[in-house]
């Protein structure tokens, strides 16, 4: 599915393909035209992707073809063993987690899981967790702490689910508990925002020693739609809210919330999966290596200091 601002680019690319086919089938030489159009396409692509507006980034972050948590687990980890359930009520398919090896080391890996299509999204509740999802994540984190495994969390959710059952079973408490326990977890924790980081539901997997964020991912106090509705009583002003909220990776680096921006291939993470996985892998490996050199006390103290310093006051 093409995004509006990608359309001229995709049309141009289709045209180039057409000329190439012509060359092949009819034997007419269009190489000059093709070279010219290819240059134009490259320039256009750079122009678009180096000047994305916050709202365009929101759309890229939500792109159905964007790699999700399970894609990263499959691409970067081996021996993944999925573990289910919170031992309290149920198993939430909106959060996936388990044990795996990363560069040969046993780790606990988890994340919100969005689907790539409607069917998957219905099954995964669009990556919007109930309390059981957060409590499963918490159980796996405590388990990681017990066995001295590093924790790697992928963040990709519009937010915690807003429903009756979620409220009845303590959505607020589930998130709060995760924040508290994660802040003191005696093992390295890395979080990577790979798409949409929406509100408390995202943060519940995000109290990490290092927070990485992909170039076109977003991370926000609430979805732009919800913010518009709260601020201006008008959910249709999401675009304006996206501008005002400072939700891009570039904003968050400036505000001291994230540690590093993980680059995406030109055209966004979904345009070249191999390159995307490689770029993520490089960042994850480097940060994990650094954290593995720290003592447990250093890890816990540094994590506390990191979040303690967040915010601006006069």
């Amino acid at each position, binding site marked *: 599915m093409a995004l509006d601002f990608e359309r001229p680019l995709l049309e141009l690319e289709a045209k180039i393909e057409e000329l190439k086919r012509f060359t092949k089938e009819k034997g007419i030489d269009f190489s000059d035209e093709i070279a010219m159009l290819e240059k134009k396409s490259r320039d256009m692509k750079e122009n678009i992707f180096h000047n994305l507006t916050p709202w365009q980034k929101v759309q890229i972050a939500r792109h159905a073809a964007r790699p999700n948590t399970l894609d990263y687990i499959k691409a970067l980890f081996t021996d993944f063993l999925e573990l289910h359930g919170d031992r309290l009520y149920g198993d939430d398919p909106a959060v996936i987690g388990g044990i795996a090896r990363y560069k040969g080391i046993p780790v606990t890996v988890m994340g919100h899981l969005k689907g790539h299509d409607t069917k998957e999204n219905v099954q995964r509740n669009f990556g919007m967790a109930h309390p059981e999802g957060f409590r499963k994540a918490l159980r796996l984190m405590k388990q990681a702490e017990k066995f001295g495994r590093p924790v790697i969390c992928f963040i990709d959710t519009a937010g915690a689910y807003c429903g009756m059952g979620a409220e009845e079973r*303590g959505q607020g408490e589930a998130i709060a508990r995760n924040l508290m326990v994660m*802040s*003191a977890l005696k093992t390295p924790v890395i979080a990577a925002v790979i798409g949409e980081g929406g509100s408390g539901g995202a*943060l519940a997997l995000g109290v990490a020693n290092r927070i990485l964020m992909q170039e076109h991912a977003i991370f926000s106090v609430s979805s732009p739609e919800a913010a518009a*509705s709260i601020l201006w009583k008008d959910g249709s002003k999401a675009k304006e809210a996206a501008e*005002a*909220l400072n939700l891009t990776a570039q904003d968050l680096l400036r505000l001291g919330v994230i540690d590093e921006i993980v680059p995406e291939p030109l055209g966004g993470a979904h345009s070249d999966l191999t390159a995307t996985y490689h770029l993520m892998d490089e960042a994850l490996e480097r940060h994990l290596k650094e954290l593995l050199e720290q003592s447990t006390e250093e890890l816990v103290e540094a994590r*506390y200091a990191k979040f303690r310093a*967040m915010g*601006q006051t006069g």
Partner: protein
Amino acid sequence: MVLEIFRKPKYVTVRPETARDSEKRDIPEGLWVKCTRCNEILYTKELEKNFKVCQKCNFHFRLGARERIRMTLDEGSFKEYDNELTTVNPLNFPNYSEKVAAAQEATGLKEAVVTGEGTIDGFPVVVGIMDSHFIMGSMGSVVGEKIARSIERAIEKKLPVIIFSTSGGARMQEGILSLMQMAKTAAALAKLDEAGLLFVSVLTDPTTGGVTASFASLGDVIIAEPGALIGFTGPRVIEQTIRQKLPEGFQRAEFMRQHGMVDMIVNRPQMKETLAKILSLHKR
């Protein structure tokens, strides 16, 4: 994550012309007020004497932070912390500074929480008291910082902490920095836990969003005032999401106790003695 519980004023004054707009909601200037829930006409002085609780139907009117301090702490014992901390506009959010200035003017407070220490029946305690009249008690950098600092002081002084919450959630105008206050306050409570110190969380109407999803839900003991709305997502957003009406009493204090989320519901006139009892049981 935040809320839309910007409800109608809780009561109307019988002589509204004597009250400024902001005062109408909170400090009845008239001799009589009408209870929003049961419509009983209440004599203002009697209402004040009864901790702003309707004598007829037990409706708990919302309190300002200063009123709450007066009702809860021993007279003259309160020493405020960090009142000099001021709100900035880190995102240059349109009209935010004006909104803060207007809230300051209307409430006489600097921000949506007042923190400090004092005594309750002689027991020393660190307190945080939120005020929903200040931008819906929303949590931005100053609220998060004041709460984190007060918890850290409690650890230094080995004192218990009591926080009265009332909030629509994280403050939109400070964006992600507001969200991060949830992690900051929860992390400070993890340290309090580690130090073996008591945290009593008192949930008052309304407690929602990012405050429910951080410190407010992490009390060793969680108390709620009767009828208080308590939840993560506010009722309007839930109704929009599931496209059906919520049942009567959903997310009220009584519902939350039934679902295991709060330890007890305490009427405001008994709040101080209940807190004193809890403090005495944890005396070190």
